[in-house]
């Protein structure tokens, strides 16, 4: 079996919170994530797992240490470079769905691809339909995002995260708001993405069953990997 390709390298990531007083949330965390790996970050609340996820997301740049994505150094890049990187290489799924309420589901899915500007609008629309179809939401495509149920919204946000075929999908409590049936659907989608599309999934979760079924669990406690 060939050596798996490293997609994320975190080297001694350290992070402080300054409110209410100076406090080290992440204590020189180092780990690697591989292509096609389904990774879960677990730990008690306050252990720093979400903080780590936001450092990996490139949205939080106020940390010590170095971060590499696909062997490219991310630490120190300009905000515009990071935005472009997020656009084409990283997909996000949040706990509270976070769709743009004024837009249809279809449009929500299309926006990251329109922003990337690699394909024509018609092609993007076609691909967005396919994405929604895969997630069983084709009928809801033209409804406003705010009219959907929680599980449906979560799946739309997954479709949005996948539209640009990112190397990495980051999830913050993706099933935290869902009933067990919907949680299972979401889990199956992630499993399929990592095995079939060779995309790397990193999910923060409290759900023990969800974590247990993933490829690898990284447990954090007091800002360090156990």
């Amino acid at each position, binding site marked *: 079996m060939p050596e798996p390709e490293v997609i994320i390298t975190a080297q001694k990531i350290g992070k402080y919170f300054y409110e209410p007083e100076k406090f080290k949330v992440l204590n020189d965390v180092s780990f690697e994530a591989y292509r096609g790996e389904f990774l879960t970050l677990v730990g008690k609340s306050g252990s720093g797992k979400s903080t780590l996820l936001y450092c990996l997301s490139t*949205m939080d740049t106020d940390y010590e240490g170095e971060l590499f994505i696909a062997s490219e150094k991310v630490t120190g890049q300009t*905000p*515009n470079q990071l935005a472009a*990187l997020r656009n084409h290489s990283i997909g*996000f799924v949040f706990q509270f769905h*976070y769709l*743009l*309420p004024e837009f249809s589901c279809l449009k929500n899915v299309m926006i990251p691809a*329109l922003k990337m500007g690699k394909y024509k609008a018609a092609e993007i629309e076609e691909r967005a339909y396919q994405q929604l179809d895969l997630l069983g939401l084709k009928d809801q495509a033209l409804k406003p995002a705010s009219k959907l149920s929680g599980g449906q919204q979560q799946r739309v946000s997954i479709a949005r995260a996948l539209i640009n075929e990112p190397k990495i999908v980051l999830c913050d409590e993706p099933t935290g708001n869902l009933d067990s049936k919907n949680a299972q659907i979401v889990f199956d989608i992630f499993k399929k993405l990592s095995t079939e599309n060779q995309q790397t999934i990193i999910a923060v979760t409290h759900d023990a069953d969800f974590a247990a079924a993933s490829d690898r669990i990284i447990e954090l406690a007091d800002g360090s990997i156990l």
Partner: protein
Amino acid sequence: MAINVNLDIALTHILTRKRQTLVASLGVTIGIGMYIFMNSLMAGFGQYSRKEIFKTNPHLRIFREDERSEPIYPSSAGEKMKRVLINPALTTSSKALNNPEKLLEMVRNMPFVTTAAPQVNVDVFYNKGNSQRKGITNGINIDAADAMFNIRSTMVSGSLDNLQGNLDGIVIGRGLAEKLSLNLGENLTISSSKGVLKIMKIVGVFSANNKNSDDTKSYINLSAAQQLAREGTTFVTDIYANTIDPDRAAEFSTQIQTLTPYKVDPWQVTNADLLSGEKIRDVMGNTVTLSILLVAAFGIYNIMNMTITQKMNDIAILKAIGFNGRDIVRIFLTESIIMGTLGVLAGLLVGGLCIHFLSKVYVGGPSGYFPIYFEPKVFGLGAFFGILATSLAGYLPARKAANVDPVTIFRR
């Protein structure tokens, strides 16, 4: 492509908040409408009062300034000189311009002079029976003076042409005619300060819609005025000149001043009081309209600020999925500019309608219809200021939006 998606998002935001958009635009509409209306009003007034000025004033006037007698020995001559008591007084020398024909020729040859005319102004008394009125009679070269002041258009009865070669004819103002109850064809005795008495026949009555000139002024043949002044045919007190651009009269006057030792006054000097009034009016009007515009801009600023506070989540999502700060600024700036443009367009329409209706209002009196006109410059400036103000008002909140930190939003 990226620009299109920004525009797409901005349009969706605008369309889902029609009411707020309408309110913000309406503020701009009122601001721009008022700006255009007030400025057109001021410009119209300016034009009107200038027209009134040029009915009786030339762009340039060349005349002999009163001179004071100078001491024979200047006081700077030193101690050796005895001081002589002097009594500064106006020199009694005549008000005549020397060699007026040549000066007139030179003035006419200046490239910027359109018309120039000699004039003899004589202070006179108009006498009828026992009633006597003071005034001034202008000895004119009929055609040249008409070209300058368009006197023919002010005639209410008789004809200016009757003065042509007629040393006994006089054209008087309507006010004077009424006060002395004189009619066309009747005789009027005028006496000059030089003691010359002449009986003139009224051949015309004019009305310049200016009480002062209607009550005191009269026109006679240039030669008749020279007789009243007890002077010869070369006697001229004033040379009047009109130029291609009255706004540059001051500049032209300094050019003519190099040709002659006599005083050359542009109309702005002669009418300084009117012009300073106009200036004050302009400052007042501009202050009012710019404040209104500022209030409208604040309206947009407020609404955009509110929108951005409401849309913190959306901004965080957009940033997460790869929109950078500049995109966010573009999205929200586009929204304010759309609101601003809608407001400006409606404002141009409102301003135009106001002007249209007011210009149909008859005020009566000398001014006739309300002096307000369509000034393309005012519309252009209004649109420019409107877009500028709304862009600025939109930019500040948009920049705030661009600085939103998505992590703090997601972690709430």
